[in-house]
């Protein structure tokens, strides 16, 4: 086998680059158009090289930035909750806030493992009993309700994903429309079906679907998705196809919501 010698190639390439630069320099000084064009191409190349370097650097620091942002987001959420409570005590908050923060406690978490291509998907978050997570808590993001905590260990929690046939969310059309159970359609990553909507209602594609707030798991008025199309089932109710806002393939940070008043409500129901 012939031994490959790189040195002549490197030498040739170096001479080529040197001579080409010399030729282009002469060309640059010879014509005004060429001068402008070569300068533009050179600047473009430099921008590309330095820009790519910066992008790579930014990419590797993304995890750090995201963690810091998630922390900051959580802090802001807590501060809003605190301020709303103060305002409510002084009677200055006339309307209920979109999320009834008196009923819910929020804890931010990161997803450490997620499945998205099964029929019964799940994910695991990095917060557990030690962080105050309890079974049955909801998991949300700014783009929707994405799961329910099903099992909790000291430091981690197992969450049943919305992309799971065993999971339903009570959702409603608009902020004051009719509500019904919504579940994953099992086919598209961002597809869901809202069922049991009376057929006499006018369904407008593009309308937003929100959490109803009637379940003890999720706060009200979290936007979930928009209506794609509706079809009448058995001549009685609509099955509404919903396009979800959340991209399950890109979720990294979530918020766990615990209903503080849940125990009290259940006790009341048991009487």
């Amino acid at each position, binding site marked *: 086998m012939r031994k490959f010698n790189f040195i*002549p190639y490197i*030498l*040739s*390439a170096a*001479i*080529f680059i040197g*001579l*080409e630069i*010399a*030729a*282009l*320099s*002469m*060309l*640059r*000084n*010879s*014509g005004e*158009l*060429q001068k*402008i*064009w070569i300068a*533009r*191409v050179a600047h473009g190349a430099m921008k590309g090289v330095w820009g790519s370097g910066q992008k790579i650097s930014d990419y590797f620091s993304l995890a750090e930035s995201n963690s810091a942002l998630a922390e900051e987001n959580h802090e802001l959420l807590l501060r809003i909750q605190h301020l709303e409570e103060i305002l409510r005590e002084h009677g200055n908050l006339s309307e209920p806030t979109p999320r009834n923060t008196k009923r819910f406690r929020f804890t931010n978490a990161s997803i450490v493992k997620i499945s998205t291509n099964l029929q019964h998907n799940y994910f695991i978050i990095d917060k557990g009993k030690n962080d105050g997570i309890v079974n049955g808590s909801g998991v949300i993001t700014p783009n929707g309700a994405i799961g329910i905590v099903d099992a909790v260990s000291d430091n981690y929690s197992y969450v049943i994903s919305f992309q799971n046939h065993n999971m339903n969310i009570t959702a409603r059309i608009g902020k004051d429309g009719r509500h019904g159970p919504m579940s994953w359609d099992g086919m598209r990553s961002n597809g869901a079906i809202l069922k049991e909507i009376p057929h006499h209602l006018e369904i407008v594609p593009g309308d937003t679907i929100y959490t109803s707030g009637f379940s003890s798991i999720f706060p009200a008025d979290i936007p979930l998705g928009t209506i794609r199309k509706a079809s009448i089932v058995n001549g009685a109710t609509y099955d509404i196809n919903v396009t979800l806002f959340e991209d399950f393939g890109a979720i990294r940070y979530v918020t766990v919501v615990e209903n503080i008043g849940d125990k009290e409500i259940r006790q009341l129901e048991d009487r």
Partner: protein
Amino acid sequence: MRRTYFGISFFLLVIVQMILCNYFQFTPLLTLSILPAMILCVPLSIGTPICMIIAFATGLSVDLFAEGIIGLNTAAILPVAFGRRTLMSIFLGEDLVARGDRFSFRKNGIEKISAALAISYAVFFIFYIALDGAGIRPFWFNVIRFLFSMLLSMILGMITVSSLTHEERK
């Protein structure tokens, strides 16, 4: 003797190229050049670095005495000189290049040499037209110029190759 003949022929062809540049500019859509053919015919016993220096000197001479835009032919012909041995290895075989043998239409076939010549011209004209246009000419203009120039210059290039590899015709 061979080298002396080649040297004299090469020098005369440089003058021919200068004449082509000065007196055969019929339209902006056509550029006639024999430089790629000349560089392709530099004996394979001469290594790439020396060939690139020859190409640089030849291109610069043409630029200085003919074109008016100094550096244009020089910048366009250097990639041809840089890729010459690789190109010849692909079309004429690695052994011929390793031995530094001479080549000719009769010995190696018109198709193989024409293919190598066509690629050399394509590389040359891509650089030449891009640098000459300096980004201000429309794409279609550059494409038509490339095709016209390739077609007519290839004919001149074949004659050039034939004259520079004359010994094989004995």
